[in-house]
């Protein structure tokens, strides 16, 4: 269940978009006990100037990304724009049955996009 993707340019600045991952949708609901799904989110949007400089979502852009955006503004097409990617992620815990019918609680890092940035 995702927020509609932005296609092509201009499309808006790079930012976090809503994406809910349902374990039923991916067919894991018989062995994943909890949660039923989680808000994973994703990143999409343009990393052109000035959005690249402002650091959407509060995440400072990499110097490299700023220079690439500057280069692109000066000579479009040379190397393209920086990428809009996760800049800060958070973990989730998943409770599930394993193949030996043990009940397992596992902690997974980097499962939820909290913040996107131009990289």
């Amino acid at each position, binding site marked *: 269940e995702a927020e509609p993707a932005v296609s092509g340019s201009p499309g808006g600045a790079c930012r976090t978009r809503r994406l809910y991952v349902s374990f039923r949708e991916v067919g894991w609901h018989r062995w994943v006990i909890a949660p039923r799904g989680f808000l994973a989110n994703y990143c999409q949007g343009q990393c052109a100037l000035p959005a690249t400089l402002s650091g959407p979502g509060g995440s400072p852009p990499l110097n490299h990304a700023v220079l690439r955006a500057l280069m692109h503004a000066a000579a479009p097409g040379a190397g393209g724009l920086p990428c809009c990617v996760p800049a800060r992620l958070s*973990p989730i*815990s998943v*409770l599930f*049955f394993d193949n030996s*019918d*043990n*009940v397992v609680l596992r*902690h997974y*890092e980097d499962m939820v996009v909290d913040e996107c940035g131009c990289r």
Partner: protein
Amino acid sequence: TRAPAPPGPAAALLQALGLPDVHRGAPTPRSVPPVMWRLFRHRDPQEARVGPRRMPQETTLRPCHVEELGVAGNIVRHIPDRGAPTRLPEPAWAAGQCPEWTVVFDLSAVEPAERPSRARLELRFAAVEAPAGWELSIRQAAEGQGAGAGPVLLRQAVHTLGTPVRAELLGAAWSRNTSAPRSVRLAVALRPRAPAACAHLAEASLLLVTLDPRLCHPLARPRR
């Protein structure tokens, strides 16, 4: 001989998530132990964030640490006793002699890279209380009936059977700082300290906490 087929995308994805096998589908129905629900609710940041009860621990949760159990770890398993279905009916107990039960835990799902930090044996007994209390003893059990048991690994006093009896196996059943064995077979005995009726082992389980360093990011480095 033909080389094994490369894993498909689904298997590769599960391997990346630390699940070596494609899940076989529907598990055998069994209830989820309350301790696992408690640990899940404590650990789950999304539940803490969006749930009606905002948890004060949200900001203080340490990565790769199980706060409720006070140990390092990122995987907690509740492993049921596999010996119960094959356990023989207890014979008529001779005076002063209480039975010994064999409990078996299958740890084959634990990967060699995982480092156990807690292995808590949990035993539920049915018994009339003994005024002087009980003594729990645990020995390594050998394979096969009548094969005997090894030396005592652990001995501890038990004051009441009203709550589950817990015993830490790490450092007793196997060494700390080593991988978990493929399986653990233990001979469990509970004897009253003064003449009293014997207890009956109703349920046994193992709560195993491990740390898989591959899933544990090092602490964030300061920005340069």
